[in-house]
């Protein structure tokens, strides 16, 4: 391998440890076993190899800062260049790498020739597969792709001789057992075949003639990469919503910075490809991937971050005129009825659309999206070597997780004004802005210090053992009083909607318990 590719960032890439230690021949020849780098350090080394040697991505759009970024106003059209003051990252490399770590699903979008497939192939090579093998197993989306092309066919002899479906063996396609699966141009796959793909992506197995095959392989961790030229779900065939929704993160393949042309010229001259030159120490074995996924899941989410996340999620489900029954006053009720969510939001006259983040979207955040958000926030914190998830980690991954799932309400006045018109096009900036605004409101409303609904829920969470009838009645009164307070505020917003339903849950619980106490006493 040419040593042009061989530079691996020196450890520590983030650790604070001074590594001065006298080395001897025993260390050099391995008589003393060298300490293996921790897995998060190796993943960081992989990241730096990718951005410095493989993809050449001098972008830092996933920004972290200590005491705020440096900002420069550029030009006369309101453009701002921000410089992160802590280690920042390139989204088009970081998010696929985090997907590799957690065994997720990543959709790479962008025009042709921007390195989407190359990046996905590099993830396959990181998992230990040879580059030719990875490329051979890329599933190429095309209008004639059938379900059999995708998953395999029954063995002809078994079809003739079998007396039951169980006896028919399937020649499964070999790509199904790869640790990293790549589907190129998934929006060129016919709808029927997309449905077969959905089962694999959603459930982790594939089925044919009553035979099934797990796609997760030995490690139990399989990562999927899809590519498409646009994000709107269009293409030769529209992407079915259920499949689109299964994409954990959506990332744009960023363009090439012309100042780095020399490296491209060197590659043309040498005939080199990055996937053929991955340093061996960056490969992750099956056990490494399992351990990595386990460490990520174990990373704690502190209470302060949970509260901000909970507050953020509360904005988006509610639609005042979405239904009559309180529980059905939601955007989902409107959407499943085939009506226009934006129009229904507009009918909420008197509501301050400027301060209500919920009015900017046409859908709420699904449970699946929330699970993915928490998972990727953990992966982000683990990648950065943090002991727990921080607010900055959530902010970093949120736009990529919710992109394509939480869509803008284009009739919202925000997208008409000159100042924010581009947010209708730049969903990453828009989603990031929603989070920032939500956190600002959370702090401005003082919920950190005082949150009556939270106090009642925490009290309930301690259980009902030993709670007397008198105490139960007192708690029911407290719940009813809180409901009256919220109801008296006039206009209802998403955050209050979730609170009222939670209070209804408490009321129901205590009421049932009180009836039980009374019947036990007779």
């Amino acid at each position, binding site marked *: 391998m040419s*040593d042009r590719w061989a530079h691996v960032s020196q450890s520590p890439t983030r650790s*604070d440890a001074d590594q*001065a230690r006298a080395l*001897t*021949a025993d260390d*050099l020849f391995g008589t003393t076993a060298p300490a293996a780098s921790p897995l998060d350090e190796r993943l960081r080394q992989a990241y730096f190899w990718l951005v*410095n040697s493989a993809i050449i991505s001098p972008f830092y759009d996933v920004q972290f800062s200590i005491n705020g970024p440096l900002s420069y106003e550029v030009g006369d059209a309101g453009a701002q260049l921000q410089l992160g003051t802590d280690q920042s990252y390139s989204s088009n490399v970081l998010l696929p790498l985090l997907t590799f770590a957690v065994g997720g699903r990543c959709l790479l979008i962008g025009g042709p020739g921007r390195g989407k497939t190359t990046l996905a192939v590099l993830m396959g090579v990181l998992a230990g597969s040879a580059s030719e093998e990875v490329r051979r197993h890329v599933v190429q989306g095309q209008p004639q792709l059938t379900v059999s092309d995708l998953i395999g066919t029954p063995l002809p002899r078994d079809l003739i001789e079998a007396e039951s479906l169980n006896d028919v063996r399937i020649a499964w396609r070999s790509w199904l057992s790869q640790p990293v699966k790549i589907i190129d141009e998934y929006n060129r796959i016919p709808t029927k075949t997309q449905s077969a793909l959905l089962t694999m992506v959603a459930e982790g197995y594939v089925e044919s003639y009553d035979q099934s095959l797990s796609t997760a392989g030995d490690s139990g961790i399989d990562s999927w990469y899809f590519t498409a030229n646009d994000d709107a779900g269009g293409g030769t065939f529209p992407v079915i919503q259920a499949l689109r929704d299964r994409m954990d993160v959506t990332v744009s393949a960023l363009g090439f910075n012309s100042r780095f042309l020399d490296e491209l010229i060197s590659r043309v001259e040498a005939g080199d490809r990055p996937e053929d030159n991955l*340093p061996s120490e960056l490969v992750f074995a099956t056990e490494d991937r399992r351990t990595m996924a386990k460490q990520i899941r174990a990373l704690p989410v502190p209470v302060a971050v949970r509260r901000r996340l909970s507050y953020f999620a509360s904005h988006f489900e509610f639609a005042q005129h979405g239904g009559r029954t309180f529980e059905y006053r939601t955007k989902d009720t409107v959407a499943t009825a085939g009506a226009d969510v934006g129009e229904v939001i507009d009918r909420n006259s008197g509501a301050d659309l400027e301060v209500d983040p919920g009015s900017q979207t046409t859908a709420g955040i699904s449970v699946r999206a929330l699970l993915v958000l928490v998972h990727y926030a953990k992966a982000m914190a683990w990648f950065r070597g943090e002991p727990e998830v921080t607010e900055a980690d959530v902010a970093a991954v949120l736009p990529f997780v919710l992109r394509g799932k939480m869509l803008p309400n284009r009739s919202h006045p925000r997208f008409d004004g000159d100042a924010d018109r581009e947010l209708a096009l730049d969903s990453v900036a828009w989603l990031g802005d929603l989070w920032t605004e939500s956190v600002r409101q959370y702090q401005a409303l003082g919920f950190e210090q005082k949150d009556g609904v939270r106090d009642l829920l925490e009290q309930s969470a301690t259980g009902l053992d030993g709670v007397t009838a008198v105490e139960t009645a007192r708690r029911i009164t407290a719940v009813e009083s809180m409901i009256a307070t919220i109801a008296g505020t006039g206009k209802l917003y998403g955050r209050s909607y979730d609170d009222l339903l939670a209070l209804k849950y408490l009321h129901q619980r205590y009421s049932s318990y009180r009836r039980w106490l009374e019947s036990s006493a007779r």
Partner: protein
Amino acid sequence: MARVVGPMIAFPGSAVDAADALDVAAVGARPIADALLESTVPRLREWGGDPARYRVALSRGQHAMGTALDLEDPEAIRSLAVVAGWRAGVLDLRNDAITRAASLPEPVTAAALGLAVERLAGFLVAQGSDPFAWPDQEPGTVIARIGGFRGLGGRWIAPPRDPAPIGIGRFRVICGDATWVIRADVFGSSIVPADEEQATSPAVSGGGVDAVVTTSYLVDLVRRA
């Protein structure tokens, strides 16, 4: 001795590498035929050494023997590898390399280090007290350029300032809000975050070498006049 002259764009590196950098990059790209020696390359790379320079230093040392080193003398192979590793920039091999240099024939050690044989003894003696010693080093010579912008593979996200020596072969610099320690010798360097003591200890003599900032993200180690 070749100087690390500043072109329009300066790169980190040691001056002693400048003269044959292109040859080393071309020749050192090929794996070593001996599997045992080639197996040491990943470790060397992890310690910050230059694999190409390592392979070339090993090759030069072997050729200086006239024939391949006797494989029945594994200790000689280990000694040559340690010397070559030090030459390739692994700072932490320095002590073992200087010790083992005495056990190898002078032409072998000199070839591995890239020195004329008659200069070797003086070099090893000088290295006992000065990790930057090198024959014919004039005052004002730039011995090494260290650092770099993190976005281009370096360590720092802010330009270094206020460089100060804190020991022989050790210098402290401040980049933004962070304080770093540079460890260096004539062949290599490493940069690590400073601990509390290093961040606040007073500056001491740098042993005849000063650290100066002449470009935006690099620190030059310069032989004092």
